[in-house]
């Protein structure tokens, strides 16, 4: 629609699109509208979620949910393998690797983890949790091949190449193996609850925090939200478009969305609001969805949009290729990440090529 100049005045977006839309003037900076708003709603939004909608001090998205991935686990599968289910604060990385190795019996289609390690919300927290960093301070270079990042990624890749408990890539082309009862663990957002409820499995399950890294416990994040597009300026509807956008964080709207298992409310004052807190499932560890917010980081963003981000574009593609090499080709993380770092740094240096 942006390419065809048929944008609406306002609409849905995701944090993946905040930077490219801002840079390409598809969405407008809503900061002046938010600052002029008499309702102080934004002071109640989780800072990590607020930050996902911000770019270069501007506000380009109103986040609609406190969305950070947690680890869903199949309690029945763990207990059948003689493994104690994880506590709400999750396993350590070493416990994660050891316990799921005990669970996996690939010849019987029993796996420990349905991995989505090439999602930034999994591997970037591991890098930071091991003491590493994706970018350097001025974002002119990536540091993904530092010893800390290499150690983190190698441990993650070992779930495929050393311990063999992650479902091999290409083995599941349809369906979610966790929902099918083939994998004991899966890291994803809140909306999986709805899918599990729809499937209504016979096995018991619950949630916990993703694995605790050795230096600090870090988790990913990500959310959808609303934006005012540049068409609103042309149509002189900025104010009414802003009213529409901010309505997603009104308590009444948040309650409606929460009741549908779609979101955890983005307002801190609704942390234990009955609209989601009394929903069943998950069975016990509801507070995990709040605990994860204390540890959530925002995706690392480059200085400019030329090479894309961890969500899309060249950076995303290079990291996806690196993960393929590590988990499918069994290439050591050091070699794969050295190559990836060179490609990304060359792209940044050449302004996007």
């Amino acid at each position, binding site marked *: 629609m942006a390419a065809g100049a048929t944008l609406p005045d306002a609409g849905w977006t995701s944090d993946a699109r905040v930077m*490219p839309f801002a840079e390409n003037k598809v969405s407008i900076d809503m900061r002046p509208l938010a600052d002029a708003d008499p309702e102080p709603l934004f002071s109640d939004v989780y800072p990590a979620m607020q930050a996902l909608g911000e770019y270069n001090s501007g506000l380009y998205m109103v986040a609609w949910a406190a969305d950070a991935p947690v680890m869903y686990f199949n309690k029945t599968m763990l207990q059948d393998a003689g493994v104690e289910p994880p506590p709400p604060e999750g396993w350590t990385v070493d416990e994660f690797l050891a316990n799921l190795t005990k669970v996996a019996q690939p010849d019987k289609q029993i796996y420990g983890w349905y991995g989505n390690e090439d999602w930034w919300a999994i591997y970037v927290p591991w890098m930071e949790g091991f003491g590493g960093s994706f970018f350097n301070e001025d974002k002119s270079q990536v540091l993904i091949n530092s010893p800390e990042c290499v150690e983190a990624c190698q441990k993650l890749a070992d779930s495929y190449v050393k311990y063999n408990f992650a479902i*091999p*890539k290409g083995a599941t082309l349809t369906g979610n193996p966790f929902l099918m009862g083939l994998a004991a663990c899966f890291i994803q957002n809140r909306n999986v609850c709805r899918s599990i409820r729809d499937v209504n499995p016979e096995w018991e399950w619950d949630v916990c925090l993703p694995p605790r890294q050795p230096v600090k416990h870090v988790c990913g994040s990500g959310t959808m939200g609303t934006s005012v597009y540049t068409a609103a300026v042309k149509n002189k509807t900025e104010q009414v478009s802003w009213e529409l956008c901010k309505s997603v964080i009104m308590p009444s709207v948040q309650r409606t969305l929460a009741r549908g298992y779609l979101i955890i409310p983005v307002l801190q004052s609704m942390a234990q609001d009955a609209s989601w807190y009394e929903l069943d499932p998950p069975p016990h560890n509801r507070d995990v969805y709040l605990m994860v917010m204390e540890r959530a980081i925002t995706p690392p963003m480059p200085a400019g949009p030329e090479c894309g981000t961890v969500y899309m574009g060249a950076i995303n593609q290079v990291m996806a290729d690196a993960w393929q090499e590590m988990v*499918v080709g069994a290439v050591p993380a050091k070699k794969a990440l050295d190559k990836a770092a060179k490609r990304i740094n060359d792209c940044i240096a050449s302004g996007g090529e």
Partner: protein
Amino acid sequence: MSVSSLASRPRLTKAQRREEITGWLFISPIVLGLLLWTLFPMIASLALSFTDFKMVDTPKWVGTRNYVRMFTRDPDFYQALRVTFSFVAMQLPVGLAVALAGALLLNSGVQGMTVFRTYFYLPSVVPVVATSLVWSWMLNLDFGLVNQLLKAVGLAPVNFFGNPKTALPTLAVMSWFGVGQTMVIYLAGLLNIPPSLYEAAEIDGAGRTRKFISITLPMLSPTLFYTIIMGLIRSFQYFTQAFVLTSGGPMKTTYFYNLMIYNVGFAFLQMGYASALAWFLLVIILILTMVVFRSSSAWVYYESEMRK
């Protein structure tokens, strides 16, 4: 038409002129469509190939930078070419041979030929995405039919789409099962060969192989020529199955050239560079088609011509 015949072309009568105008009117929709939706976009994409165009802003002229980048700074370019050429080498000769073998079998006087002909043609009319998903189920590592059969005979299951060594050959083998359309074309060609040629050959003592080499192949050569050209063009544009099943993985072993164009244009939003890549693909296909055309005088036999 010679110059002298042009000069001496008689003036059209009123009725002839009216007929000519009517003819043009009848073909005008297709001509307009060709201009609007084929030629104009082609010219636009050629122009865009010399620009930096991110779709949401105006194109910026960069000259030949996209073409230089293609050859000197994009490792995926050579990988995509390698994958595509490998696929064409695996898929085209065997695919055509399978189609010809099927047509020969159907032409051997088997009962129920019309039923078999429909049966073999059906996969061609089923949407490619649907057949791809069916293949993904059949080849699934854990519960796919093929791996169940392998396990039943004591062999280890194969991760067809997840193993870098097997992913591309798997796609090539899958495509061999979609040769129904080519088979029907060959069958029509075989049915057009006069039986008298075979009868005469039999009288001269020709065996099966001699008849195939000296009668069937030469008489079928125009049809073979057509299917080779079309098969070449189609193979180089292979996209859907890779997009649905592998997304170019694992480790870019199924990263077809067309898939790369799609990624560059719609995932990376570099439409200028994607246009340059598309024009390079056109050049490759043109060159290979011309090579086949040039070679055709040596092996394509038209009944109406006399061999020198």
